[in-house]
């Protein structure tokens, strides 16, 4: 009879929401698939590992530091971020991964009946948080694999509180150039918040790529999301942040949980940004080399792919992506299936060191030859 009780106390939008089940630990997966090693090419992690300064912070962390709470709102880190981006401390809010700040932003601006606008084929968390908060997610189809500014503007109404633009987009790697972004922000005309998720911005070095940190000087309704999980390779520590105009951040702060970011994460993030130039260059070089291996490989097989920005690329495979995943796992290679991103029969591959990419190529070739038999 407990189900009857749950029926009564659980709101409909929670009952209808599908919980997310993260993948099992690597050790479990390795034993299930019977492999000795596992190349993780599924989460867009930076396989080079964090910058050298981070190693020193982690090595220096001792058990004596554990009894004390972390700083509740990442004071030192925000100080450093403010200096790096020529802003003030009160323009930053740090979270347990940028996923946490997504939630804080939606809570700050939306009530039931409001809507948010984003794309149908992008990072899923905007849509998920909206839905389990009882907020409508208007999902605008991508156009030529990129966000469609006109269609997104057409969807705006007086209940629209936030527009999420993933720039560059995960998983397609497309981005709006500066002109497109500025035209879009002008058309939005301060009617709602525009979040520009720049999780992968450090991977982009094209001169026409817009920097939301600068745009927010002209458009105070812009919020940018950044993360330490991707370029800076701190994914295990869970730390990311948002930056916006002081008035906007002051509102989001009210719904944001304090003390959610632990001490090693705060210290490692601070170390990561203090001396990151060479590290970023080395990572970009690795990604570029990986592309130079993979693109000709897929060209040779006549398999279509998208190789744009970010440390990943997407491939349109000639079989079910979820079957390919299982077959590649038996070779110790883990890719991301794209059905969940509404790209059935595509996979996304993280771009990492050449020897691992070569292992991927060999496994892919072998799997394909079994399927074609």
């Amino acid at each position, binding site marked *: 009879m407990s189900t009857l009780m749950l029926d009564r106390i659980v709101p409909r939008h929670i009952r209808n929401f*599908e919980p997310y089940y993260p993948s099992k630990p690597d050790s479990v997966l390795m034993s299930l698939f019977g492999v000795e090693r596992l190349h993780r090419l599924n989460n867009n992690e930076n396989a080079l590992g964090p910058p050298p300064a981070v190693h020193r912070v982690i090595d220096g962390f001792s058990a004596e530091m554990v009894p004390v709470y972390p700083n509740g709102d990442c004071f030192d880190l925000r100080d450093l971020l403010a200096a790096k981006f020529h802003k003030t401390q009160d323009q930053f809010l740090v979270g347990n991964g940028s996923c946490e700040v997504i939630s804080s932003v939606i809570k700050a601006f939306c009530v039931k009946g409001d809507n948010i606008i984003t794309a149908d084929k992008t990072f899923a968390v905007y849509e998920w948080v909206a839905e389990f908060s009882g907020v409508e997610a208007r999902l605008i189809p991508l156009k030529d694999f990129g966000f469609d500014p006109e269609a997104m503007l057409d969807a705006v109404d007086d209940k629209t509180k936030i527009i999420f633009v993933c720039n560059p987009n995960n998983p397609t790697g497309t981005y709006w150039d500066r002109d497109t972004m500025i035209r879009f922000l002008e058309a939005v005309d301060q009617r709602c918040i525009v979040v520009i998720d720049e999780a992968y911005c450090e991977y982009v070095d094209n001169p026409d790529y817009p920097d939301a940190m600068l745009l927010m000087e002209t458009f105070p309704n812009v919020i940018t999301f950044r993360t330490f999980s991707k370029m800076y390779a701190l994914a295990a520590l869970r730390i990311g942040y948002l930056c916006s105009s002081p008035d906007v951040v002051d509102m989001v702060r009210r719904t944001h949980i304090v003390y959610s970011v632990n001490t090693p994460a705060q210290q490692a993030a601070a170390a990561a940004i203090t001396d990151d130039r060479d590290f970023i260059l080395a990572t970009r070089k690795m990604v570029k080399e990986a592309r130079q291996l993979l693109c000709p490989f897929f060209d040779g097989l006549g398999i279509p792919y998208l190789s744009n920005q970010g440390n990943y690329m997407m491939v349109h495979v000639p079989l*079910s992506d979820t079957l390919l995943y299982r077959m590649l796992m038996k070779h110790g290679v883990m890719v991301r299936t794209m059905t969940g991103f509404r790209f059935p029969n595509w996979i996304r591959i993280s771009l990492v060191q050449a020897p691992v990419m070569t292992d991927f190529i060999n496994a892919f070739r072998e799997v394909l030859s079994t399927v074609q038999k």
Partner: protein
Amino acid sequence: MTETGSRLSLDLKADICWIPLVQGVVETGAPVMGLDPGKTLRLALAAEEFILHLSRTAPGTRLILTLSREASSVSALFQFESSPEDLWAMNLTAASEISQDLDQGMAHMGLLLASRVADRFSIALNGRTLSVTLFQDIIYPEIEKAEVPSAPLRGILSAEACSDPADISHACALTMTLYPEPLYPKSFRTPGNIIDRISQGRFHAALVKDEAGTTAGMICWQIPSRRTVEFYGPYLFSKGDGIAQLLIDHLINQVARTEAITLYSRAAGPDLPLGNFEPLAALAYRQSNGQKETRTLWFRHLREDMGCPVWAHPVLVPFLKETYDRLFLIRTIREYKDQGGSRPARSLLGTRLGADKQEAFIRPMLDGTDIRENIQRHIQLLVNEKYVNLFFTMDLSIGWQAALGKDLTETGFEPAYVLPYAGESDKVIFHYVHPHA
């Protein structure tokens, strides 16, 4: 008593003094929920027999009766704390036993009647709480086949979810014209059923239309269990490139971000775009004329397979290993036989009968030491009544069901296919092999 539009509920003690009240609730409630007079009477009779049985066998037990409208049926749910031992009388085969031993049988006559007058029933045991649901299906009018339009399609084609009654009816009628019967669900003949289930979110349909609004194709699906989606189609009503792929893409995109892992079809026709799916099994389906027809079942996963453990009787292990290897599914097979602990004496099997005797589906509901004989009794009865295809579904996440592997193979069933994630883990569907076929 509480009432919320499509649900009415009574909380009482099992006592014959409440029989008129229960009758009254069903007789007034069911028609309001859309059930016709004949079926209302049957449901009232079933409810009456049920409470009579409880008042005799467990007087004073607290009983919650919930009458509700669910998509295309009205159901009476009985929830009470009890040992499930008496429920054996709901076996399809119980009648002969009861008539043989009238003294002992009388006490169970009510349950037998209750289960016979219901269109379907289901039973769930949760801790000590037993839930028995009796269903009466609503009757819908049948439609005629429709003429296929010959005008060419115009402009860009697009796929969209559809719940419009006229569109659905028309698409069902076109499907009946263009496709042979096994390729579409019987409910297409009575689209009112589909429309009701769509409006309650129990069934889904999408159409591809051209710019002039002409319907070019349809795909339908439903969610039989938490992690599976079964689809029907795609059905194509016009010639046109990519209609099938548009429908499949629409379907996949609709279910891709849900809890579902397995998307499958037991009746996909020639228009399924194959690159999207994997063959799950080839089923030797028998026709009434004794001939066999091979039906291919197709599936795909909607996300990464993380693997799971399954229970299996040792006799089933070779079949499972072969299947899992062929499908690249990751499973930890744990062997499980009857462990010899105390078991109830009498088992219960639920049977769903196809209207045209083409198929019967048996599902184990309660374990008991007589389960092997019970399976045999069911086979005998169904074979005598000339049912052509007998299926038995086993949930590999439930130890006592998995332990039935030996009993099933020794009574003439063969494992036909594995349906990944149809239960907590996988289910195996067995097919009965007629000794004379």
